[in-house]
């Protein structure tokens, strides 16, 4: 197994007018589990298809370790890929479907049988092996498709394109942990495309966030949560997503709606910025301090395990998370304090600094 390296790889479906995947350089490291996260139409499937060779990229080169595979067809790449929707050989039984990738590659008969049975046991397909795959419900069909992707031993990577969307939610949890186990046992590089942040965060060693065909941030789940490098990551990950407030940097101070929220760390050219802070790092009830803003409570959502307090901070809506049963009432004047090191400044959606306390660490 080897790293999969994309060197300046980009793809356009319309001869270069728009990019489905913008030219990017990126390495998928061998043996890791990646989650590829992004909104609909951001180029996730296109990126996977470039790796598996179903699409030849408009620009750039694809490397598997030391071997350049840009123009190598899919069959020569040894990649397993599972598609968004079930794709089955409908006339064949479940068993034959699972055996198909192995038989095409002339695995010995007993090896085929061993592997098919192993995969079917892991995915809970044992009872259905003899059935014609067309007769299964869509969820099970997708599990069979998944099984076809997992049955081979020799793959360079397993690419899963939202494999569990059509699967019953109750089964989804079990399958996700099965996938994790399989990944641990086989050590294949795994790229898992999903819309669902929980799925991404619980599943992956590393989460790659794609937006408009470009990678906006990649890192461990905690890193993406704690220090988003891009406004989109802040919004997309976490629930509810990061608050962003329009602000201004002048004389090293960050102002929101005329109020000083704190000091900008480092030299930052004066001008408009957006201040981003997650609800988890906005606290009410600690009294005035820095970084922070005066606020007025507008409403409280009682979520059971915790409360979400809606406020207007310096005139702008913001959500703060509080413990369940918090005493805040609409109309109350409060002060919202931001956790040090968790308030960021964004310019053109890209992180350009953070907000620090006005005087040293004291706040």
């Amino acid at each position, binding site marked *: 197994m080897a790293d999969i390296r994309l060197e300046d790889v980009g793809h356009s479906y319309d001869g270069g007018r728009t990019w489905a995947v913008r030219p990017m350089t990126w390495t998928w490291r061998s043996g890791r589990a990646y989650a590829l996260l992004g909104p609909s139409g951001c180029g996730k499937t296109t990126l996977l298809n470039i790796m598996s060779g179903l699409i030849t990229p408009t620009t750039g080169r694809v490397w598997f370790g030391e071997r350049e595979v840009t123009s190598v067809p*899919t069959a020569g790449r040894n990649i397993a*890929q599972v598609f968004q929707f079930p*794709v089955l*050989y*409908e006339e*064949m039984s479940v068993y034959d479907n699972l055996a*198909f*990738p192995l038989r*095409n590659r002339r695995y010995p008969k007993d090896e085929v049988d061993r592997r098919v049975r192993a995969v079917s046991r892991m995915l809970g397909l044992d009872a259905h092996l003899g059935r014609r795959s067309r007769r299964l419900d869509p969820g099970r069909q997708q599990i069979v498709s998944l099984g*076809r992707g997992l049955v081979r031993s020799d793959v360079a990577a397993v690419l899963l394109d939202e494999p569990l969307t059509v699967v019953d939610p109750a089964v989804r949890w079990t399958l996700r942990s099965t996938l994790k186990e399989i990944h641990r046992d086989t050590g294949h590089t795994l790229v898992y495309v999903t819309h669902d942040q929980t799925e991404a965060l619980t599943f992956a060693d590393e989460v790659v966030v794609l937006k408009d065909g470009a990678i906006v941030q990649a890192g461990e789940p905690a890193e993406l949560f704690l220090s988003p490098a891009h406004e989109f990551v802040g919004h997309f990950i976490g629930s509810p997503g990061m608050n962003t407030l329009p602000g201004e940097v002048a004389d090293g101070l960050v102002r929101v709606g005329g109020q000083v929220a704190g000091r900008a760390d480092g030299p930052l050219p004066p001008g408009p910025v957006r201040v981003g802070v997650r609800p988890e790092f906005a606290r009410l009830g600690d009294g005035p301090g820095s970084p922070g803003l005066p606020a007025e409570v507008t409403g409280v959502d009682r979520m059971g395990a915790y409360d979400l307090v809606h406020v207007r901070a310096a005139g702008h809506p913001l959500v703060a998370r509080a413990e369940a049963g918090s005493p805040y009432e609409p109309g109350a004047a409060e002060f919202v304090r931001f956790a040090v090191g968790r308030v960021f400044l964004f310019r053109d959606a890209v992180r350009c600094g953070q907000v620090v306390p006005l005087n040293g660490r004291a706040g």
Partner: protein
Amino acid sequence: MTLTEPVKDPVAAGADEPDRRPDAKPKDNRAWLLVLPVVVCVTFTALVPLMTVVNYSVQDIFSPSDRIFVGLEWFRSVTRDPEVRGAFLRTLLFSAQVLLIEIPLGVAIAVAMPRRGWTVSAALVVVALPLLIPWNVVGTIWQIFARGDIGLGGWAVNQVPGVDFNYTLDSADAWITVLVMDVWHWTPLVALLAYAALRSIPEPYFQAAQIDGASAWATFRRIQLPRLRGVLTIAILLRFMDSFMIYTEPFVVTGGGPGNATSFLSILLSKIAVGQFDLGPAGAFSLLYFLIVQIVSYVFFTVLTRSGR
């Protein structure tokens, strides 16, 4: 729905036992009235003419006022007639050959046709061209095209050393000419039907086949062929019926000859009915002919649809 079933009040039936089957619909026997216009049409276009034929087939008619009822005599004599039997076997052989050539060839053409790009339209036009030509013109074209002396095709074949191609004298040459003509004329139909079915296969199926390392043959066998079942059933039925009843083209090209080498059932029938004006035997002949086409088509249809379940 059967006529004996009690008519249910749709609202009441829906209220106390909701039927959740997807095809659940209120039942109302008045719906049969909707079929009436078709029944009237079919009566005048098919049933009445057919009954006329039945009428002929059981009588010996000398003149409009002088006729005798002969029962099944005409049927008996027609089935015993060696000329009819010969024509029947010939037609059956012809249909079998037509199916064996046109179905695989049509599918092969459909598979080879491009799936996207400007070449799609070009390929479609080229393939569809023979279908746009009227039957008798097809016959005329081939009558000239296959001539050994002045026809391009016949002449070209004659350039091969040791071949003396002449469809007006040689039975085998005549047979081959009619067969090739039919293949040329009708394979495009099979190809277009198959192409339409192939186009409806979503792209991910082919992508999955690539990922799974399937060969071109395996892709065809496992993805394309299963999707062709429906249209191939139709194609086989159409081509069987049409080739079993072929008339115009061989009539124009060979006139059934040389000898009776290309004298198919339809050509013989028209000779008896129109040429000799033997309406009795012709009526019996027609009914048997009709029956054979129905039975064989039914068998094809049943076998082909059963095997898909």
